[in-house]
C-alpha cells in the first residue's frame, strides 16, 4: 500500500470566514494524505469543519492558507477554468441533497459532465446508459428525477459522479436524507466502486456509515483529532 500514488495531500490547510464578529476559523491547520484506492470516512460533529474541508478538497472553495495537492497538482496555482476541468474529470461529487437538475431526464443528468468535457452525443448517451444500468436504473433513463425515490436519485447522482471515470469520489453526507435500508444500498455501491480502484472520501456523522470505510478521520473544532484504520465494509 505504501508505494501507491498519493491522490490528496494537504498541508497546514487553513480556512477562515469573514463574519461581522471578525474572522471565524473553520479549519485551523489540517494535514492529511490520501493514497489512491483508499476509502476514508471523515467524521465529526457539526461545526467541526468537515464540510468546509470537503468543499476545499472538491475545489469548490479556496483555502485561506496552506497547500493542497490533488493528483500531484498544486490547486492554488490553477485558474477557475482549470479547476472546473479538475472537478469535471478528476473528482466525482455526491451530495446529501442529490443535486440532480430537475428539468432533465436521468440520462441527461448523468451525461451532463460529458457535455462539459465535449464528448459527442452518441458516445455520451451510450456511456450514460451504461452507468445507469450499472446502478440499476437503466429502465428509468428517460424519466425526470421527480419521478423516482430519494435512494434512486442518489444512485443517479453516483452514476453522474462516475461518468467521467474520476480518480476520486467525494461524498458529503450521501445518506443524510435516506432511510437506513436505502443507505445500505448506497454504501454498497460506494464499496463496489472503491474495490474497482476509485478513491472514496465521504463525510458522515453516522458511525454505521463510517464503518464501511477502511480509515476514519475525526474532526473537532477545525482540526483532525484522530486518524485510524478500521476494518471497513463493516455491515
Amino acid at each position, binding site marked *: 500500500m505504501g508505494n501507491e500514488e498519493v491522490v490528496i495531500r494537504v498541508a497546514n490547510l487553513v480556512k477562515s470566514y469573514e463574519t461581522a464578529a471578525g474572522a471565524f476559523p473553520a479549519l485551523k491547520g489540517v494535514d492529511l494524505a490520501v493514497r489512491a484506492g483508499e476509502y476514508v470516512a471523515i467524521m465529526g460533529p457539526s461545526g467541526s469543519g468537515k464540510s468546509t474541508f470537503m468543499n476545499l478538497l*472538491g475545489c*469548490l472553495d479556496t483555502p485561506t492558507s496552506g497547500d493542497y495537492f490533488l493528483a500531484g497538482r498544486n490547486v492554488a496555482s490553477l485558474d477557475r477554468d482549470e479547476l*472546473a476541468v479538475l472537478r469535471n474529470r478528476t473528482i466525482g461529487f455526491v451530495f446529501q441533497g442529490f443535486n440532480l437538475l430537475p428539468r*432533465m431526464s436521468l440520462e441527461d443528468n448523468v451525461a451532463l459532465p460529458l*457535455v*462539459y468535457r465535449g464528448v459527442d452525443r452518441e458516445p455520451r448517451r451510450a456511456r450514460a446508459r451504461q452507468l445507469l444500468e450499472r446502478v440499476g436504473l437503466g429502465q428509468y433513463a428517460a424519466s425526470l428525477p421527480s419521478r423516482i425515490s430519494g435512494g434512486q436519485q442518489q444512485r443517479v447522482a453516483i452514476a453522474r459522479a462516475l461518468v467521467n471515470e474520476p480518480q476520486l469520489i467525494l461524498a458529503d453526507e450521501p445518506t443524510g436524507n435516506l432511510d437506513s435500508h436505502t443507505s445500505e444500498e448506497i454504501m454498497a455501491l460506494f464499496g463496489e466502486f472503491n474495490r474497482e480502484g476509485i478513491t472514496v472520501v465521504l463525510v458522515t456523522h453516522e458511525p454505521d456509515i463510517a464503518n464501511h470505510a477502511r480509515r476514519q478521520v475525526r474532526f473537532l473544532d477545525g482540526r483532525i483529532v484522530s486518524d485510524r484504520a478500521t476494518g471497513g465494509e463493516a455491515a
Partner: protein
Amino acid sequence: MFRFMLAEAWHAMGANRLRTGLTMLGMVIGVGAVVIMMAIGQGAQYAVKQSIASMGSNLFIVLSGSFTTGGVRSGAAGAPTLNVADAAAIAELDGVINVAPVHQGTRQLVYGPNNWNSQVVGTTPSYLDARAWTVVSGAPFGDSDVRSATRVALVGATAAKNLFGDEDPVGKTLRIQQSPFVVVGVLGSKGQSLDGRDQDDTVIIPLTTAQRKVFGTPFQGSVRMITVQAASDEAMPVVEKGIEALLRQRHRLREGMENDFYMRNLSATAESQAETTRTMSLLLGAIASVSLLVGGIGIMNIMLVSVTERTREIGIRMAIGARERDILSQFLLEAIIISITGCFIGLVLGVGMALLVHAVSGMVVVISGGAVLVAFAVAAGVGVFFGFYPARKAARLDPIEALRYQ
C-alpha cells in the same frame, strides 16, 4: 454540444412559458414597430421620389408678374408680362435643354353625353420632353400644330377614363369651350404630384389653339408660365441667373426695379420635400428603436431574475465541471433565442400590419429586404448585448456560494 445547449435553452424557456412569452412580447412589439415605421417611412420616401421623377428633373417655372388695380393685387401670373418670344430667347441660353411656354386653366370637357372638368394645358411639344411624359397610344402633336393652331388634344389617363370609359380615345372628338378637338394621343400615367394633385387629370393642346379657342387672351403671344428644363443639376444655378438677366434685359427693367416675373425652382422644392420625408422616416425609426431598446431591457431584466432563480442549478453545473464559458453561453443562448424568436414574430406582425395599413388607407408602404435584415441583426445584437451582463454574472458565480444558495 450546441444541439444539447439548444435543447436545454428550450427546456429552460418552456419551464416558465408565460414569462418567456411576455419577455418575447417586448421584442415583438419593438421589432414590429420598427418594421411598420420603416415600411411607412420608406413608403413615403418612395412616393416622393416617384412624384419627383414624374415631375421631370431640373425644372424651373417662370411665372408672369402680378399687377395691381385699385389696391387689389393679382398675384403671380396675373399680368401678361411673359410672351412666346421670351420663351424662345430662354431656349437660346447655355445649359437649357427644353423650354415650353404654358397657358393652363380648368375647363369643362365634353364627349358625347359625358362631361368632366379637367386641367387644360396649352403648350408646345417641348413640354412633354421637359416633363419626361410619354404618349402611350396615338402620337404627340408637333410644332406645326402649334404654328397653325390645330384643334388636337392629348388626354391624360384620368381624363380619358372619365370621358371615354372603355373606349379608345384616339381619333375621337371632344369639346372644350364648344370647340371640337381631335384626340391624337393618350398620355402615360404619372400619378400624384407632390401636392397630391392627380397629374393624369389633364388635356394637353397646342399653345396657340389654347390661347385663341379656349382661354382667349387680350395680348397675342403672351403666356402665364414658361417651363424650363436645365441640362443638369449643376447647370441650374447658372441657368437661373441667366434667365433672370435675360428677362430683365428683354423687359427693359432698370437697376433697382423689381422683376416683373417670378421664378420657381421645382427641383429645389422637391428636394426639400424629399428631405422632409427622410427626416420624418428617420424620426419614426428612432421612436421605434426606443421600443426595441425597452424590449432589450426587458430581456436583461428577466435574464437577471432567471440567473438568481437558478443560482443553485449553476452551482451544480459548476461542481460537475462547467467552465465559465459553458455557463456564459448557456444564458447568452437563451437571451438570443428569446430575442430572435421575438424578432421573427415581430417581423411577421410588422409586415402584416404594414400591408393592412396599405390595404386600409392606400398609403404606400415599402418593405425592403435590407430593413428586414437590419431588424434581425439588431434583434440578435440586442439579445447579445442585454443577455451578456446576466450571463456573465452567472458565469462568475462562486461555485460554493451558488451551491449553498437556497
